[in-house]
């Protein structure tokens, strides 16, 4: 990462709050960007804003994680066009209550948060092995550290993503390609806006700066903001016979 200029980074789920802020940090650092998402109009607005503010190349590409075949084709094209880094920031909280009774909702949560991102990274892993440079950032969640009745579909998917990234990190180690797992706590985005029970909510900009710092320091897993590491340590250490009785 000594020469970031003109290197192109693919951001998947680019209209999400964290992705938008991270894209701005990457653009400011001089990376070119390929923004992927479903909402073409919104992607173009974000792209144009980054071009004007940071004078970098920004392209957009349509990608719907619910359309795996098309998404993988897009990934292949991106890889062929040269790709230095990839950020997976797509996320779908879903509705736990609905997912409890409606398997299509549950599968959608699993697919967007885990299956589709893993499939894409699968496709890109070979590319990174061959190039032997660049980086992979996967945005998980502290919700993936322990299953709780209020959001375990989302948590299970994010937990699976973290496990996948762990394996991928192991695989890409010889190629010298770092894989960063990001575990944000509550971030002030559309996903958390107006939800009850939010506390210690971080701004997307702070989280984005934290991600970039962790990337430069070649960290493996980063909790953002940092204190979530300790909060989750405590939550993980509650014995199961106690935890299962809690209303969380």
């Amino acid at each position, binding site marked *: 990462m000594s020469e970031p200029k003109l290197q192109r980074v693919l951001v998947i789920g680019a*209209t999400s*709050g964290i992705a938008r802020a991270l894209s701005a940090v990457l653009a400011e650092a001089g990376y070119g960007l390929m923004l992927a998402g479903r*909402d073409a109009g*919104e992607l173009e607005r974000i792209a*144009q*804003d980054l071009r*004007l503010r940071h004078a970098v190349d920004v392209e957009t590409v349509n990608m719907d994680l619910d359309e795996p075949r098309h998404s993988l084709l897009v990934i292949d094209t991106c890889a062929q066009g040269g790709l230095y880094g990839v950020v997976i920031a797509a996320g779908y909280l879903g509705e736990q209550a609905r997912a409890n009774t409606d398997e299509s909702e549950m599968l959608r949560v699993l697919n967007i948060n885990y299956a589709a991102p893993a499939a894409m990274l699968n496709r890109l892993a070979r590319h990174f092995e061959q190039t032997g440079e660049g980086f992979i950032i996967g945005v998980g969640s502290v919700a993936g550290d322990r299953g709780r009745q209020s959001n375990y579909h989302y948590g299970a998917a994010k937990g699976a993503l973290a496990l996948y990234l762990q394996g991928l990190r192991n695989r890409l180690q010889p190629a010298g390609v770092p894989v960063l797992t990001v575990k944000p706590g509550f971030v002030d985005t*559309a996903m958390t*806006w*107006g939800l009850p029970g939010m506390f210690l909510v971080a701004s997307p900009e702070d989280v984005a700066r934290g991600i970039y710092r962790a990337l430069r320091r070649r960290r493996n897993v980063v909790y953002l903001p940092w204190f979530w590491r300790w909060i989750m340590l405590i939550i993980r250490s509650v014995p199961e016979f106690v935890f299962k009785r809690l209303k969380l």
Partner: protein
Amino acid sequence: MQTKRIELSGWGRFPSTRQEVARPERYAGLRPAGNMFNLGRGMGRSYGDAALCNDGVVILTERVNRLLDFDAETGLLHAEAGVTLEDILRVFLPRGWFLPVTPGTRYVTLGGCLASDVHGKNHHHAGSFSNHVEAFELLTTTGERLHVTPENNPEAFWATAGGMGLTGMIGEIWLKLQRIESAWMQVRHYTGENLDALFGLMADDTLDDDYSVAWIDCLARGDQMGRGVLMTAHHAAAWSLDKKHKPFAQPGRVQRALPFDLPGGLLNRLSVSAFNAIYYRRQARRDEYHDHLLHYFYPLDSIGHWNRMYGRRGFIQHQCVIPEDNALDGIKALLSVLQHYGLASFLAVLKRFGAGGSGHLSFPMPGYTLAVDLPISGDAACRVAADLNAVVLEHGGRVYLAKDACLAPDEFRAMYPRYPEWLDIKRQLDPDGYMRSDLGVRLRIGEP
């Protein structure tokens, strides 16, 4: 629309209420919900209740703030309404572009600037904000997305410019920036030992410059009443700068924030009187100098949360304009009211307006405008404001709605004679009256 309930107030922190608030993150989400009361809100820098909507939902524009296009030939900027002047300055000032008109803080959005049709220190030459807007997109409660220009839809254009957000949500704006050669201002100070002298200086065309504003010591009495310093300026040409002033250097960034509310009694007559006297002498000593434009235009922006200066209970800023012919008498009468109450105001700003705006509810009219802080808690401030408003009405002037929290419906109607015309257009754009603010409810905007 996901909403949450939070405590909300204007910049003066009076009034303050709990409101439903939504914050769209996508452009498609930035639209009024047709079947409930709505109001757009940017940075919340209007002072009173103009950006509150107690029985509806306040739609925050802070995440819909993308720059969309810029033509480096013409200076035409196309951006979403949630973009702040700070955003624009950060990106375009180093490239040699500046705002055509700017209020005294850069932490305001384009949408807010248009809705309040803000003015700057160059009003007598450049007019108000809307004079530099070429077009905007208006999202109406009937679900329309209108591309509005002064040519294709003058009614919607001039009802929205200065319309306090009550015609619809402003979505995008096309604004013409001005080219500058440097980020420095060539500033000159002139001292007037009383109001008559100050008026003489301000009316003197040979002293005039692109920007001009006067600061008044409103505690000075007797034959010193209304003494002040006229500060004129223009953008410094690149050739005129000496070596230590690089054309687009950043100013020293000392951003400090007031960490807590100052105790109410700290700013009393005595302390402000002393401050004013020192300030007067210091400013009077300065003759001609270079000042970075961020300092010149936004002196208070370097103190975050400066509204805490007046304590928790909040304050009101009162700004009015008095037409040219009555201005000297009117301003004297206003100063007398302030002195009668023994109010210590840090900021008494006097400025000359040029031709009035075309917006039906735009504030500026040819004459002199005076802005003072009323550093007492809300209701008490309103009693003083009532006396000030009576003086304003008597002299044929009007009060700035973006700062108001106290005006009465009949006073508003007397001050804004084009209101019936505006109301016709409001009813076409928003037939069910869903765009609504606490200011609008207080002034019975929507009723004849």
